[in-house]
């Protein structure tokens, strides 16, 4: 029985190579801009990106997607903001946030599993529902005047620069590292993502796994929403529209194969830092939105291309013989 050295295998893995790149990028960025003075808000962004990235990692590992993961955060924020204003204790608000997230993802998961409609299209429809639901709700619009004490809790700092919510998001990350390695359900997610047919042969109820994974992802989106809005003094629901633009790249860059079946939570940490840095770089270097969007577009395409193509085949030798284009 042979075991590999964990340190060596980390630094030769995709995550390890990314991590080295991230560190170098960080050094260059701090040297050429005033990122250091803005470290707190940078870390705050990373906090919610990690959790949102995890939420997307879970569904993408199954070969599914949730494009409404940005707009749903605004909807959840609208509910939680109002509850906080009414003086509801934070733990209960967190539970409500998770519940709303779960309900949203349950709809996508249910339609996907029951009617075999691709989650991509269902979640697109959800985007419109999230945007359009506000006129039907009481007190629609911005939630402002959230009590200062609550905003202060959201902005709790440790050692001056480390946001408390980063600690929470790292705890969640550690939980998922454990979850994916030490529970049967974690293994089932890998199995169903790898091959639904094989998973069925191994006695896995694939529909149940897909549905439950969507629920899990919904709960994580609830937490993401809390992390995004709690430090803010007001909730502007449309503010989170488009955040899926961070989460999807975070997931695919981390090594989650869009064909399903691969991906490790530790990779999410590395790629969340990377994506957050790309965003900061575009601002701090004065490149603006044009370069930001271009970067994300290219990052998504390159990350996805590298996950569906054998690494060796990028350099000439094709891994799989072309057979009339058919698999």
């Amino acid at each position: 029985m042979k075991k590999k050295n964990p340190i060596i295998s980390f630094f030769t893995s995709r995550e390890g190579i990314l991590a080295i790149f991230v560190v170098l990028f960080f050094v260059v960025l701090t040297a050429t801009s005033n990122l250091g003075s803005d470290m707190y808000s940078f870390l705050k962004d990373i906090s919610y990106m990690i959790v949102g990235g995890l939420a997307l990692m879970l569904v993408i590992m199954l070969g599914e997607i949730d494009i409404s993961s940005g707009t749903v955060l605004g909807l959840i924020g609208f509910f939680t903001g109002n509850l906080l204003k009414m003086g509801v204790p934070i733990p209960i608000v967190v539970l409500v946030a998770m519940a709303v997230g779960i309900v949203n993802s349950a709809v996508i998961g249910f339609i996907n599993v029951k009617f075999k409609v691709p989650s991509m299209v269902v979640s697109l429809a959800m985007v419109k529902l999230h945007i359009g639901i506000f006129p039907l709700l009481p007190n629609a619009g911005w939630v402002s005047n959230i009590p200062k004490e609550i905003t202060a809790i959201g902005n709790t700092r440790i050692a001056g620069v480390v946001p408390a919510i980063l600690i929470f998001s790292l705890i969640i990350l550690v939980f998922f590292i454990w979850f994916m390695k030490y529970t049967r359900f974690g293994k089932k997610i890998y199995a169903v993502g790898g091959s639904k047919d094989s998973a069925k042969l191994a006695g896995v109820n694939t529909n149940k796994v897909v549905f439950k994974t969507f629920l899990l992802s919904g709960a994580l989106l609830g937490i993401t929403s809390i992390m995004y809005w709690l430090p803010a003094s007001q909730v502007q629901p449309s503010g989170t529209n488009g955040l899926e633009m961070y989460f999807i790249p975070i997931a695919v860059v981390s090594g989650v194969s869009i064909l399903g079946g691969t991906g490790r939570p530790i990779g999410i940490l590395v790629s969340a830092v990377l994506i957050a840095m790309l965003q900061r770089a575009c601002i701090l270097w004065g490149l603006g939105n044009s370069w930001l969007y271009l970067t994300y577009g290219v990052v998504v395409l390159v990350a996805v291309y590298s996950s569906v193509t054998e690494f060796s085949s990028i350099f000439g030798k094709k891994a799989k013989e072309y057979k009339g284009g058919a698999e």
Partner: protein
Amino acid sequence: MKKKLHISNNMILFVILILLIILFGVLIPDGIFFNPSVLIGTTSDIAYLGIMALPMTFIILTAGIDLSVGFLMTASAMVFSKVFTMTESLTVGIIAALAAGMLFGFLNGILVAKTKIHSWLVSLGTMYIFQSVTWFIGGSHSYAPGNALIDFGTGKIAGIIPNQLIILLICFLIFELLDTKSTLGRYLHAIGHNESAVIYSGVNAKMIQCLIFVMMGVMCALAGLMFLGKSWEVNQTTGLNMNIEVITLVVLGGTSVAGGVGSVRGTFIATLIIGVLKKGLALMGMSGDVYNFILGAVLIVALIAFAYLEVRKRLASREMAVKNMNE
């Protein structure tokens, strides 16, 4: 049997259309809705969406999808603006816009045809890239009346039939012919059902897939010009979530996201329905958010309904096969 079902799908849609017109006619005071110019306006107002939905039908028929359409449209419209401002020639501007649309579409097409990445991911990546193009060109582009494009875009033939509607009708007829009478239409349906079998019939399926994305690009550019002619303005947020509206038209028209099943005719009727819906809601004083919500709901209901019908149809055909065998 399949043919019968097609007709009945479109007939159901047609009945829904009539019912909607009657509903709004009654609900909106003074019978404003039955006014011919209002009724005709329902379609011409969203003619630019209908124009994009036609090639989108082709793409979804092949089991693909294009998420980048909204920003592709905006980017091409901005190219027009930029070139038009520089050269002050309408012709040069239009040619530049169509060429840009073709180029953008080709980028999508070549990535879909040459890599193993599914088109929804390709177009998600290129969506950001086209979005970045809108930022590179920059700013908001608006025109006052008196400009030839605006005059044409808001003009009417014989004072009653809007030019926008005429363009939509011409495009619809072309695509309808392609769908039902051409080899391309036949191949598109076949690719959606079974790409391998098409390749093994000596057809270059990859080239066809590339071709329809190029068509999509050109039509988006045309839609961009129509949008500009109607709304007098484009800016960076114009294309946001427009892809969902276009996809809704196609899915509501009975085209299956699983590929193979669907028709351009259905998409056209769906365009009429959504046009009536949008105008009717606006005349009743509802905000755009309500329209968004209803659009999302329509998309979800259509997805479920057609998926359900598809399952029923498959079961029926399976029974028939068993019967056929036992005879």
